[in-house]
């Protein structure tokens, strides 16, 4: 595409590097910013600069945080004996939204996939092992909440091997039929899995 100005071209070039944004959308966004007041653009660039310069990762769970230790790790109301292992910050937000979990998290920063150049040493795996080891038994359970893909399963399996020498219960989130879902529409693999990992009723 021919742009009327080098400055527009530069802005489009940068904006279109963002995921899910093509050249056309980038151009629309750039022109939109020019049409609106200058304050708005400055506020945006300020926010981005702040984000980049001041963002931190919690030294315990590696979640995105404003401080050295994140709100969840610092809270007295959280159960410090359970750690839920997730891929990234979005997963923490998703699980927090369920209001069903009161333990701590551990953000790996990805899953093991050598094809995409991600090996175990690129993830926060040693940090997790150290958290369990250094707690001297205070951490009682580690829950794996990773995607049900080949890469997710490989990562879960890898972590269970790394953690098996410690006195800690290891579990993984249940896989099966979604709530409100009808059996006949479930795919065969999911349905098969849900039969294998069925839940027993307590007899009392």
């Amino acid at each position, binding site marked *: 595409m021919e742009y009327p100005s080098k400055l527009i071209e530069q802005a489009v070039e940068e904006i279109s590097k963002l995921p899910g944004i093509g050249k056309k959308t980038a151009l629309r966004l750039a022109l939109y910013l020019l049409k609106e007041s200058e304050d708005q653009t400055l506020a945006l660039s300020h926010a981005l600069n702040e984000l980049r310069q001041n963002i931190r990762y919690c030294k315990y769970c590696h979640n995105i945080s404003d401080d050295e230790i994140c709100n969840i790790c610092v809270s007295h109301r959280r159960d410090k004996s359970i750690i839920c292992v997730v891929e990234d910050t979005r997963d923490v937000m998703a699980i927090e939204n369920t209001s069903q979990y009161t333990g701590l998290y551990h953000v790996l920063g990805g899953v093991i996939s*050598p*094809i995409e150049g991600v*090996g175990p*040493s690129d993830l926060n795996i040693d940090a997790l092992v150290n958290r369990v080891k250094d707690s001297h038994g205070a951490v009682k359970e580690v829950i794996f909440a990773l995607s049900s893909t*080949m890469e997710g399963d*490989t990562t879960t399996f*890898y972590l269970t*091997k790394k953690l098996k020498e410690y006195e800690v219960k290891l579990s993984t989130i249940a896989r099966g039929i979604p709530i409100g879902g009808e059996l006949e529409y479930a795919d065969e693999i999911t349905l098969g899995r849900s039969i294998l990992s069925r839940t027993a009723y307590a007899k009392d």
Partner: protein
Amino acid sequence: MHIEKLSLFGFKNYEEVALTFSNEVNCLVGENGSGKTNLLDAIHYLSMTRSAFNTIDSQNVKFGEEFFSIRGDFRLSEKALPVLCSYQEGKGKTFKVNKKEYARLSEHVGKLPVVLIAPNDTDIIRDGSEARRKFFDAIISQIDAEYLDNLISYSKYLKQRNSALKRFANVGRTDYELLKIYDEHIIGLSLYINQRRSDFIIDFEKLFQNHYDKLSEGNEKVSIHYRSEASDSDFKELYNNALRKDLALERTTMGVHKDDFRFTIEGKPLKKFGSQGQQKTFLVSLKMGHFDIIRELKGFKPILLLDDIFDKLDSRRIQHLMERVVNHDFGQIFITDAREERTRTILNELKISANFYRVNRGTVIQ
């Protein structure tokens, strides 16, 4: 099972075309390069979710277009089954049956089977072991969905393991625990795939030999030998012992991705010792075996796609095929030929009625 209607948009050399077919014999005639084979390939797409000739979807879009769509109206035991396959640059491929999209493309494979006989089939004999694995895997996948799923998993684990081996070599440190995870899957899946392939070959070889005997009038002994490291009772040990070699070569040297199916004639390798004629007979028999095993296991006849066979096969082999047409052994058939007269003569002699379609640079006249 047959296809009643086919419509294409932006597929290969077709801008837009819509055709109605006979559920018996359909002949596509026209000059070389007019697009006859592309029509067969469109039907192959609807069956196998991909091209038989070029597996890169983006290269099957008509030059200058951004997407293609192939729509076929199939009929499977009296039930209408509209199938739509579309590909858009940047968005990828979608596959819908009865307007419902599949979660995974592999779910469709085997629902509407086809058997294709094409000039490049000789690759099965002449090329390396990969061509033969592909040929047999495609057949087993059409009759066994679980096999296809496991085959896909196997190749994923293999790719991850190979990438990991390369990475370890670059970094200079090996994570044995990660390898072990991949190994368990690769060994387990190898044993499964090995068992399935060897069971399949036992059934298949009989059907194949039956055709070869008929075609060659029964005086040559042909066989298919399935060779696999995973057949060895010590496979797990062999696999684990190869670790040092794997680390040095930065790839996985053991497993069913090294399997081969060896073709022999009178106990000798067909590739070296078979004449041109024997090789062609071998190929036609393989394809007829493919047809028979699907008919046997699915309970209905697959669609037969015959690309340019009158040019490539001699009269004896053509006669064998045509006898089966006359006997109604086949279901729906598509035949391409650059020479309309030749096809008309062959079919007239045998009193086979057929629909003719004249193909000319992306247009088709019925």
